[in-house]
């Protein structure tokens, strides 16, 4: 089945989310749609799936114009979608989730789940999935949950499958398996629209690539196009994908964690007796699949966690048990995982956010009052230095884009005397241009002789920036390897398979 979009335009007020978009997906083709956050990919797909209505333009399935005004229309036209955030009920079984919304009843109104069970087995057999129809969804790994979504689409006879950022939540191994599945689906004649911002995956699996920037199609290219070219098309200017890492001599250990254990409120250890150190002038990346204790470990380093055992030595001084204030002012800069929740006060101005940590220190305070003039003047300087794009430093920080918000956080955290920078998922949700900026800043700190601990679930980021890589799995550091490790080895570690070196 082929799907064609002609002149799709969608505006929200004066903002044009989609501008005359033309796109054609052939039968049995994997068509990648590449674009930054906010480029209009999701809007476009929501129009195709009937969640939004286009202002103008038409949709053609097998050369015939069809009218889609709600998801059920899309389903009956053979269009299925796997959302980035799964639409599954965690406490239901696989079969129960699949019949949801299509419940058939048998005798005395009893739910007919057997039909669904056999359908799941059939589809699983066809594609070599190992999915138990009676498994409770929440007990399944994320990769399998995604397969449940795909099975659902296939059972309801989707001929065009939309996958919205499907690899964001997967381990490298799971990603590889998904790509394999996509190829199998393609071989059986299913068309796939693959939405992503990850260049490597696109080049690996796509037959055709459409690039969207600011609501417009800016390129239709083949997968042979280089990653650099793809990135440039996405951003609209040349991008430095692999920041240059100057080789230089690594200094003394600056931060040492010994037998560090972090417990949650119920007393369960979420970080288990980890040991590591970071040297001056070095980036130690902590890799791992989301939810293996990295967030808690990062927070524990500045005493944001309440139940911590072990020792955190910064330049030989014990920090564990001290206040957050003491940790920050002892020389740790902290970029939290969520800039909106933990990094910024949304209703405060840019200038006010830039002094969140230093508001009671000279020169910002005089006696008990704030020196408004100094605060504004320093903010002007920071805005220039860190290229924070805004109308005025008095604007509420909530009005900024994600990249500019992150720049405010970074500018603030680097305005204290820093010995170690702890960055937790510093590029999550950012556009390519901002990612480039954050990476440069991290390396600049390293080159200036500071220790950097980078927590990241993005393998590319870890490989590009790290001097050494610690891999976390279920609260433990499985191994610390140097940056020459291959993606495959790293992927295995992230999946919990300890390397030979570690087990020896």
């Amino acid at each position: 089945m082929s799907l064609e979009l002609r002149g799709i335009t969608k505006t929200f007020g004066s903002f044009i989310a989609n501008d005359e978009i033309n796109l054609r997906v052939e039968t049995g083709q994997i068509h990648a749609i590449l674009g930054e956050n906010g480029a209009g990919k999701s809007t476009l797909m929501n129009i195709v799936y009937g969640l939004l209505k286009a202002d103008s333009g038409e949709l053609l399935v097998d050369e015939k114009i069809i009218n889609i005004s709600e998801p059920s229309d899309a389903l009956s036209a053979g269009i299925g979608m796997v959302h980035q955030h799964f639409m599954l009920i965690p406490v239901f079984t696989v079969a129960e989730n699949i019949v949801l919304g299509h419940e058939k009843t048998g005798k005395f109104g009893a739910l007919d789940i057997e039909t669904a069970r056999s359908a799941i087995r059939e589809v699983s057999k066809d594609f070599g999935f190992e999915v138990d129809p009676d498994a409770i969804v929440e007990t399944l790994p994320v990769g399998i949950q995604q397969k449940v979504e795909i099975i659902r689409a296939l059972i309801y006879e989707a001929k065009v499958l939309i996958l919205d950022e499907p690899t964001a939540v997967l381990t490298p191994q799971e990603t590889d398996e998904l790509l394999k599945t996509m190829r199998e689906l393609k071989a059986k004649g299913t068309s796939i629209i693959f939405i992503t911002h990850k260049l490597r995956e696109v080049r690996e699996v796509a037959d055709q690539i459409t690039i969207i920037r600011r609501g417009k199609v800016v390129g239709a290219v083949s997968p042979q196009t280089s990653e650099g070219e793809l990135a440039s098309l996405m951003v609209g200017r040349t991008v430095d994908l692999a920041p240059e890492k100057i080789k230089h001599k690594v200094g003394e250990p600056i931060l040492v964690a010994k037998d560090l254990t972090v417990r949650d409120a119920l007393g369960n250890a979420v970080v288990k007796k980890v040991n590591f150190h970071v040297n001056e002038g070095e980036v130690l990346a902590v890799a791992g699949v989301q939810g293996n204790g990295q967030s808690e470990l990062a927070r524990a380093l500045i005493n944001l966690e309440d139940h911590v055992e072990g020792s955190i030595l910064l330049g030989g001084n014990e920090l564990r048990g001290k206040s957050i204030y003491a940790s920050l002012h002892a020389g740790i800069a902290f970029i939290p995982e969520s800039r909106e929740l933990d990094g910024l006060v949304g209703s405060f101005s840019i200038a006010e956010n830039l002094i969140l940590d230093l508001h009671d220190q000279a020169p910002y305070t005089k006696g008990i009052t704030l020196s408004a003039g100094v605060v504004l003047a320093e903010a002007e300087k920071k805005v220039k230095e860190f290229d924070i794009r805004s109308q005025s430093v008095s604007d509420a920080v909530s009005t900024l884009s994600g990249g500019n918000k992150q720049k405010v956080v970074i500018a603030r955290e680097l305005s204290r005397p820093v010995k170690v920078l702890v960055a937790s998922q510093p590029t999550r949700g950012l556009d390519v241009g901002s990612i480039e900026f954050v990476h440069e800043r991290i390396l600049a700190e390293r080159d200036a002789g500071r220790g950097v601990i980078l927590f990241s679930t993005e393998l590319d980021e870890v490989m590009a920036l790290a001097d050494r890589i610690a891999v976390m799995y279920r609260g433990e550091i499985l191994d610390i390897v140097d940056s020459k490790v291959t993606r495959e080895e790293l992927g295995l570690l992230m999946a919990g398979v300890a390397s030979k070196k570690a087990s020896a």
Partner: protein
Amino acid sequence: MMRNSLSKFGQAIKLPGLSFGLAFTLTGFIIAFSDSKVLSKIGSPLEFIKSAGATAGNAYLALFQGSIFDINLTKSHNFFQGFYPLSETIVIATPLILTGLSVALAFKSGLFNIGAQGQFIFGAIGASYVGFHFHLPLVIHVIAAALAGMALASIWGGAVGLLKAKTGAHEVILTIMMNYIAGYFILWTLKTSQFLRPGRIDPIAPEVNQSARLPLLAGANLRIHAGIFIALAAALFVWWLLTKTTIGYKFRAVGANGQAAKTAGISVPFVLTATMAICGALAGLGGAVQVLGSEHALNADIAGSFGFDAITVALLGRAQPLGTVFAALLFGALHAGGRTMQSNTGVPLDIVLVTQALIVLFIAAPTFVRFIFRLKKLNSSAGLTSKGWNG
């Protein structure tokens, strides 16, 4: 710049203004429809409308006469006495401004202070004791009495912040419970030999000495006293504290996003305790002013509903110091005028409570008011931040 700030001001009072207008219109209908004379004319529509209009109009005229200016008093006394109602409005509004500020400041730190009532009581107890027990020079005595009240109330309020910081107990539950304790504590206090007025058996303390009283502003015939200046100064202080000081910055940061404030090293326990201590002092000052300015003697009913109306006042004033002052004046007028309305037209005093309740209802349901007046969504920063049970 001027125009900008004017339009900002317009934006800020739009919703409270419309809520107020809507509440008043609705109350007018209630007054008219609850009147048997009006209802008896339901047969002829024209008569009915006329009669309904007259009833509501008379009630509102009485409300005005009781709260701002009464021409009859200028005839019977002198022109000046015509402002007796306005003086009453201000006398009622004075403690209400202070308790309102207490609730408003707590809002800014993300706390919901229901405890102004209890804090008010402790302020009154402290001021009363220093007022009647000691003999001090003129100005010093008033200041000492007020400070004593504030100190006591500050400890009472600060305890809430400390408990929340150390145990995670929710301030709403704490303050409600502590209001009960304060309410019974004053009953007990008034029965102790220290407080019981010689020769009396009912719960009333001795009058405070002349030297501890706030001076009257407009002669002996009007009750208006210098407390209003204290209240206005307190409003100015709260504004200064929030916008100009380091500590106010901490309060606002914790109120707007406690997690980010904590991550940046601001001590949340300190902010909670300090906020509640200052809130306590403000409400306590309200109690002190009530004793030293208008009541002169501590009695069991000293707090009236000043602590509870304060919540409404702070909400209506959008937790802004200036807004709180205006809202308190409005409530003072409603209370003062309500009495006259009852005696002149027979419309019960309780109708004032209905109006108050409706104002709060409309303020709390801004979407509804916007829907009625087809308003666009206001800037979200104009809203209040009070947190749910997990806050």
